[in-house]
């Protein structure tokens, strides 16, 4: 019998390949429960990625218009819930700018120390979670262990592990505990050791490196035009750090470097964060040197600062002051102000509008990872499906702040 004629024309060999639609999240282990990515795939390549947020929209800005200025603190805690203290300090600075207040030096140092601790916990969480999502579970345990140590210090200071609500207009809720410095000096080396350890486990791991390197890269110009800030921007090589560019608190008096990357890919973002952990340690050490142990913590302005609790119980003046501040709220002069600090993910801005009453007329937060997540789809398109997890993880998208 004759041989089979295998000369088929090309068309018949081609498989039908219309793009496949894949829905990732919102309840996906790597999507932090709050993001949904509708993917358009051809094979394993992402043709189009539609990032949908808003699953954790909690009406932060609307709620702020209902309470007093001081009642906003618990809400800002829960914006970037990985580094609440930075949000606290940022908001306090914003309102103080509007009131024309400046807090005593001791408070400024204290705010810096707590803020940098929060930054450490932020970066630990981000890098740890990212590693875990890539299957490296052990370093995650290491990092979380280190984060627990940070939280121990913060808990000792504020009484809460995570959501401190510790900032106040014109100061902080409590002065530093006597053994604050001791705790930091004892804790920081251990934390850094753990970071080293986890780092060694990851950065000598070829699989890990291969999955990060040259993945999710973005150019300087794009990053800037997209409004990226923080580690994600610095990973592209732009040394824009508000602590350097527009120093607030006492950042101009301490000595630290701004780690930057070169390629702006996922690995750079990972390394920049690790580098910042070390810089934060440096800052904290200098703060501990320079923070006075005595002296006032809160500025003495009875219109915004609460009186001593025992005085409230015993004297009518303090009772009235407390009553006015709690029930009516501190009166903030009318005007508008935009105040920005370096948050865990970048420029954390507050745009406040006051009508002179005890209630904010408008509190607008500028969440750094809103724009960062906004750029996600651009750096995903054209990549492979498996690149989503490391890329998304390295952006450190925090639902509370991204969705307001």
């Amino acid at each position: 019998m004759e041989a089979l004629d295998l000369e088929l024309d090309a068309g018949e060999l081609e498989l039908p390949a219309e793009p496949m639609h894949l829905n990732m999240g919102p309840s996906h282990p790597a999507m932090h429960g709050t993001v949904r990515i509708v993917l358009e795939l051809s094979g394993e390549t992402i043709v189009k990625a539609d990032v949908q947020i808003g699953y954790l929209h909690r009406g932060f800005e609307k709620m702020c218009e209902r309470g007093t200025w001081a009642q906003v603190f618990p809400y800002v805690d829960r914006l970037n819930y990985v580094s609440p203290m930075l949000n606290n300090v940022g908001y306090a600075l914003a309102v103080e700018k509007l009131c024309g207040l400046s807090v005593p030096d001791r408070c400024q140092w204290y705010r810096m120390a707590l803020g940098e601790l929060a930054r450490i916990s932020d970066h630990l969480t981000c890098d740890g979670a990212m590693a875990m999502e890539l299957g490296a579970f052990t370093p995650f345990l290491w990092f979380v262990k280190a984060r627990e140590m940070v939280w121990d210090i913060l808990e000792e200071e504020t009484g809460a592990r995570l959501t401190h609500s510790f900032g106040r207009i014109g100061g902080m809720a409590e002065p530093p505990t006597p053994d604050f410095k001791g705790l930091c000096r004892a804790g920081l080396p251990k934390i850094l050791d753990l970071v080293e350890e986890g780092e060694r486990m990851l950065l000598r791991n070829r699989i890990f490196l291969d999955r990060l390197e040259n993945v999710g890269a973005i150019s300087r110009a794009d990053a800037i035009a997209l409004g990226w800030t923080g580690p994600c921007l610095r990973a592209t090589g732009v040394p824009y750090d508000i602590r350097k560019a527009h120093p607030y608190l006492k950042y101009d008096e301490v000595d630290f470097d701004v780690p930057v990357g070169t390629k702006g890919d996922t690995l750079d973002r990972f390394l920049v964060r690790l580098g910042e952990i070390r810089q934060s340690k440096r800052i904290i050490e200098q703060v501990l040197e320079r923070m006075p142990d005595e002296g006032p913590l809160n500025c003495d302005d009875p219109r915004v600062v609460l009186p001593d609790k025992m005085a409230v119980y015993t004297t009518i003046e303090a009772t009235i002051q407390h009553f006015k501040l709690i029930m009516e709220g501190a009166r903030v002069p009318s005007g508008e102000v935009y105040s920005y600090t370096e948050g865990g993910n970048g420029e954390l801005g507050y745009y406040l509008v006051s009508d002179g009453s005890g209630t904010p007329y408008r509190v607008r937060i500028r969440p750094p990872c809103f724009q960062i997540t906004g750029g996600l789809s651009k750096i995903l398109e054209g990549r492979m499906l498996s690149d989503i997890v490391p890329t998304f993880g390295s952006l450190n998208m925090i639902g509370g702040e991204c969705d307001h």
Partner: protein
Amino acid sequence: MGDVNRSLALQGSEQGYATTRLDALLGWARKYSLFSYPFITACCGMEFMALTSPRFDVSRFGAEVPRFSPRQSDLLWVVGTISQRQGPVLKRIYEQMMAPKWVFAFGTCAATGGFYDNYTTVPGIDKIIPVDVYIPGCPPRPEAVLDGLMLLQDKIQRGERRPGVVKPRIDPAQQVSELVRLRRSAGDPRALLPALREEKRS
């Protein structure tokens, strides 16, 4: 566990069998092998991480295995605020889970909506799905969560489905009365000042 232990002790293990009620055995088996589905949305997720981490180590209670497919899991951790937009997703996932299934309301937001009393937040997931254990706290400490887990295990053992709430270990009312006693005992309240400050420090 109790029944099994006792019957084993009575019968003696050399006889190689134990007698117990089937539901008790099932309950015992179930409560120590909870496959959990972490439905993590918000702040409480940080504490959930801490819960799974070495210090608090939820695996001591046999509930560490996360299954990200609802069909394979029987304990739904609703961790964090549920927005109206998230509502259908939550309901869908709950419906996909196989019976018997249990639900944790992890944190105040999941339990009542917390202080997000506004246009976008579901005021408590029990508006949408039934809840077995409410864990208050914003976010709750891991210890409280472990309390809730033990509470749930107890309920599973007893086959009870009434919702339960994790109570604080220390009764706040008691503390208040203590403060009042202090306040009354002192003639001049200002005399209390240093003592209380010390108390706060320690």
